[in-house]
């Protein structure tokens, strides 16, 4: 524990990562209390105050229908984090299980599972998500589905490599000689040794999921208005650069803060947990 804290605090980058992530998480959790205009997350219009440059009480300015950008960004963080967590909660168990089976069982199982994984990995992620969204209605749920579909293979590959090397270890042999079943060996012996790498990747991924979701929304394929979304905000605002710069810059910075923060925290976690690349 002491070692964990020392690593987190001594290294300025880790500290920065921790701070940024804390900012994002706290914003998402307490948006209702921090946002000066909580109702602006919905379909509210206030044409008297539309397109205002940043000044009190609209510290990030207002958008084209008069909603406070700061409040919307806080709620957008909530949506992004939610998206990230849901995607990971579904994609990770699927990816990890397939990776464990392919890595430990070998033979035809390995061949079939890894070739399927390879197919998914060979399609550029954004293209895959876009195609799925093209077929489905653009809603938050479908957005999550699309991102999940492209996310699990990365965990499969990570765990496959780890499982392949762990299966040569003495403790796996010992469990086999004792007579433990394959399921036990995969999930109770090998998996715990993969957890540091999986956790590290999940932390890094949260930032990337937010980025991908923002990209999808930027292309109009993600969440629909009036739900606040960082990517859509950047897209909508980009038409009005450089005059109404705040419409693009602040949501863009918000994405940067989240992705950067999770990246740095992920690196720190890697060092703490001693995970593999």
């Amino acid at each position: 524990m002491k070692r964990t804290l020392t690593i987190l605090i001594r290294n300025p980058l880790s500290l920065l990562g921790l701070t940024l992530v804390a900012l994002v998480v706290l914003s998402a959790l307490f948006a209702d209390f921090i946002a000066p205009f909580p109702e602006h997350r919905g379909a509210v219009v206030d044409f008297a105050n539309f397109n205002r440059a940043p000044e009190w009480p609209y510290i990030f300015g207002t958008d084209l229908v008069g909603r406070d950008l700061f409040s919307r960004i806080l709620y957008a963080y909530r949506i992004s984090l939610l998206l990230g967590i849901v995607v990971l909660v579904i994609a990770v168990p699927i990816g990890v299980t397939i990776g464990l089976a392919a890595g430990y069982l070998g033979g035809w199982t390995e061949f079939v599972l890894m070739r399927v994984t390879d197919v998914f990995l060979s399609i550029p992620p954004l293209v895959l998500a876009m195609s799925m969204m093209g077929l489905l209605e653009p809603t938050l749920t479908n957005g999550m589905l699309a991102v999940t579909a492209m996310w699990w293979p990365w965990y499969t590959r990570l765990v496959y490599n780890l499982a392949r090397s762990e299966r040569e270890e003495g403790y796996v042999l010992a469990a086999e000689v004792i007579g433990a079943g394959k399921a036990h060996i995969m999930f109770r012996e090998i998996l715990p040794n993969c957890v540091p790498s999986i956790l590290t990747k999940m932390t890094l991924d949260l930032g990337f999921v937010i980025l991908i979701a923002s990209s999808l929304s930027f292309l109009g394929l993600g969440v629909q208005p009036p739900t606040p979304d960082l990517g859509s905000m950047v897209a909508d605002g980009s038409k009005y650069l450089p005059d109404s710069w705040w419409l693009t810059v602040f949501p863009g910075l918000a994405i940067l803060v989240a992705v950067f923060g999770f990246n740095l925290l992920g690196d720190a976690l890697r060092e703490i947990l001693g995970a593999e690349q």
Partner: protein
Amino acid sequence: MTQTLLSLRSVSKIFHVGTREVRAVHDVSFGVAEGECLAVVGESGSGKSTIANMVLGIYPQTLGEIVYRGNALPARRDLAHRRAIQLVQQNPLSSLNPKRTVGASLRLALDVHGIGDKAGRWDRVGQLLEEVGLPADLRSRTPAALSGGQRQRVAIARALACHSDLVVLDEPTSALDVLVQARVLKLLDELRKSRGLTYIFITHDLSVVRNIADRVAVFEKGRLVEINSTDRIFTDPESDYTRRLIGAVPVVTAEEQALRDQLMEKENADA
């Protein structure tokens, strides 16, 4: 007359490496009597590890059969076979799962074979640790908190957890420090004698063999070169290879030096 617990009959193992065929074990036959300690010695490439792996059922033999208590062992072992033949590995670091407590690793054997009732197994784990000279509360620690010698004792406890008859020990003390090795060897010796266990003790260290084994089987390049009682092997070996092996052992006392010199003289005389 003690029974033969395990015997290998004309066992061979051929590995296919790419397009090549590698004969790791060539037509080997020998038996292990119940309650004895048979040392299997040889250098790298001798096939001793391959034989251990086949006895343990890690992979099947290519030719011949391995007979346990009169019945040929199948390629796929069932729980009863697994229970009967256990393993102690060389590397104390990797043979215990670093992410599980020592107690959990021990408990696995009890859970798999349904030994005792569920409630009592954690207590039994504590007892097992005490039987190998470790404090019972070590069961809640992970292997990282234990020394090499302690980990190896845990590995021994694990091998004995399900009351096996035959224990295959693959270089069990080679990775340990000198003083620790002596303690662990003593433990192994005492356990075998007090419980009537049978050991197949694989090692390259002949000085260990002299003091722990009843009989010695010497292997070279996959073939059984010589098998005899320990005393005979060390005082009057039949094969030159055995002589050379003993002659190469680095010794600590003048008496041992004399024994080596005597054996090497014989080899040179016969040549």
